[in-house]
């Protein structure tokens, strides 16, 4: 009979019966001591002891995969078989690897995995790690990554569903066309962008949504279904009729068969998703829009700082508002578009070359974050002066979202005219938002554009992953999306048709909605 007398009737193939000889008396405590002293030495005292005593008793070496006998105090090299000799002569059949903590059985001639011993090993490792956590922080190593261990339920699920999908570097899983249900490309293009937002994809594919709404009325559930469809491996285009119906139900202003604005759809969709996320580990803060912790807020919400400076007393009044996107005015619009600030000299910024005066995304962001003089007709009440004074207002980024969406305001709906601005705006593959941060504001105040010297600051670096384009006029137009798959592959999604695209295709396109993803994610 294999296994210890404590095991369940199911035979564990990784266990060996030779540990039974060891598992007597106070073996658990003894094993803990061995782990604590010689494998994972957490305290200074155990480290000192380890440093002194962990050498091979035969040859004095410390580097040849040292093992400790489990039955007596003996350390021997594994590589030079000194521990093997000991095991044979003393008939001590178990040894522990001092580097990784694995238990070796000389009878089985392999490492064995006893559940109880593994449990002890894990606990001791965690304890030692905790003791040493302060030593690792300065090295910038951070939280220890522990591999995923399936729960009993997850094991059952895996056993009942044996089919596995293999992801290779050039597989097309996640790519799927969407049927146009009558001018619904405004919805299709956004769906393509969302289904290729990595964090959102991970959230939905790991089933993190817990629904609290009536069946068939929750947009988050429908998104979840959508992700299942996209990653199912089916190559035929998907028909998103349920999604369309839910959107009509929850965002009435978008209902109807006319062409709608993709940007409006994006904001409406994010809003409905945010509202329907009530059940997902929000705690008590679900109803506070400023402190929601739903997946939408975690991914898309940033903080925009507005500083109003009184021109008389120079007192600054600051407010911070949440945002899901940044809408940028373009040259040629009826709002004044300032030329490039005096400091620039055509240098390369953010990988955009400023040839032939083409407007860049950085130009638009610079304009967005420049100090704006609010004229004499728009005086603000200054709490310092206790009267109405002229002031300047400036917007900067206080907190950057994980996914930053830039909306190029191509559609003018002023009283005078309705038109589309087709000016080409060049945008980069990689974007550094550092110059537009509230923290970089000092240099902005001087009216000078200073390139950030802080190249080590990775927090503000973004990568382009989706571009929504609009072709045609205000009256009749069509939306398509470029999305990024794996690291460097781009595809064009035109309703039901998906084609491979080059990076040049993407960067040469007009650009209406630009989706950027943070390059480095921090644990909170």
């Amino acid at each position, binding site marked *: 009979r294999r296994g210890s007398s404590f095991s369940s009737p199911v035979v564990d193939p990784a266990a060996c019966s030779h540990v039974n000889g060891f598992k007597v008396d106070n073996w658990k405590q003894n094993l803990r001591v061995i782990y604590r002293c010689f494998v994972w030495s957490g305290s200074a005292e155990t480290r000192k002891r380890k*440093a002194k005593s962990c050498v091979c008793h035969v040859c004095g070496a*410390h580097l040849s995969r040292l093992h400790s006998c489990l039955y007596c105090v003996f350390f021997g090299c594994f590589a030079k078989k000194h521990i093997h000799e000991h095991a044979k002569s003393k008939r001590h059949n178990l040894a522990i690897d001092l580097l990784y903590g694995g238990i070796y059985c000389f009878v089985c001639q392999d490492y064995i995995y006893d559940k109880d011993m593994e449990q002890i090993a894990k606990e001791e490792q965690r304890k030692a790690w905790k003791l040493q956590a302060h030593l690792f922080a300065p090295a910038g190593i951070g939280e220890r990554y522990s591999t995923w261990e399936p729960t009993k339920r997850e094991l059952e699920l895996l056993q009942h569903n044996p089919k596995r999908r293999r992801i290779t570097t050039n597989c097309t899983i996640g790519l799927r066309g969407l049927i146009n249900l009558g001018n619904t490309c405004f919805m299709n293009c956004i769906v393509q962008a969302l289904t290729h937002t990595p964090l959102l994809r991970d959230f939905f594919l790991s089933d993190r949504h817990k629904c609290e709404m009536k069946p068939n009325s929750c947009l988050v559930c429908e998104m979840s279904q959508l992700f299942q469809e996209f990653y199912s491996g089916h190559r035929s285009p998907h028909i998103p009729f349920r999604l369309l119906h839910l959107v009509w139900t929850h965002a009435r202003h978008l209902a109807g068969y006319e062409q709608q604005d993709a940007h409006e759809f994006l904001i409406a969709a994010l809003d409905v998703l945010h509202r329907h996320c009530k059940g997902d580990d929000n705690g008590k803060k679900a109803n506070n829009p400023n402190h929601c912790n739903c997946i939408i807020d975690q991914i898309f919400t940033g903080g925009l700082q507005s500083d109003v400076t009184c021109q008389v007393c120079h007192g600054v009044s600051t407010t911070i508002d949440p945002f899901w996107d940044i809408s940028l005015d373009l040259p040629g619009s009826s709002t004044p578009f300032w030329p490039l600030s005096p400091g620039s000299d055509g240098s390369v910024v953010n990988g955009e070359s400023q040839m032939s005066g083409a407007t860049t995304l950085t130009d638009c962001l610079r304009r967005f974050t420049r100090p704006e003089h609010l004229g004499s007709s728009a005086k603000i009440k200054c709490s310092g002066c206790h009267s109405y004074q002229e002031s300047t207002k400036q917007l900067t980024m206080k907190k950057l979202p994980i996914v930053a969406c830039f909306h190029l305001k191509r559609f003018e709906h002023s009283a005078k005219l309705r038109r589309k601005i087709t000016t080409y705006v060049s945008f980069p593959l990689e974007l550094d938002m550092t110059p537009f941060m509230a923290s970089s504001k000092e240099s902005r105040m001087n009216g000078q554009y200073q390139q950030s010297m802080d190249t080590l600051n990775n927090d503000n670096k973004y990568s382009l992953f989706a571009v929504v384009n609009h072709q045609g006029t205000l009256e009749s137009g069509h939306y398509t999306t470029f999305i990024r798959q794996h690291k460097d592959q781009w595809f064009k999604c035109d309703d039901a048709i998906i084609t491979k695209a080059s990076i040049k295709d993407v960067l040469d396109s007009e650009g209406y909605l630009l989706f950027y993803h943070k390059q480095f994610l921090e644990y909170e």
Partner: protein
Amino acid sequence: MSKESQLRALVNQKLIEMGERERLKELLRARLIECGWKDQLKAHCKDVIREKDSEHVTVEDLVAEITPKGRALVPDSVKKELLQRIRAFLAQHATL
């Protein structure tokens, strides 16, 4: 034991005592994951197991098969960084 191995043992002792060995191990682990070394070797292990085809591939079998490749695949930048750290550590604790 030769003078060189004596020195090695002494350095090793100091590294363990000051907790630097653990730090270096974790740093190395992080770097090797970042540069894809871990994934490469994992894939190689799977290939070896598949090739061996037998029910009983031992840890020893794997170690023998993958050690040369593993050693060769470590990027020079990683080696450089570790070496720099060890040098800096020794410089700091020059009483050796």
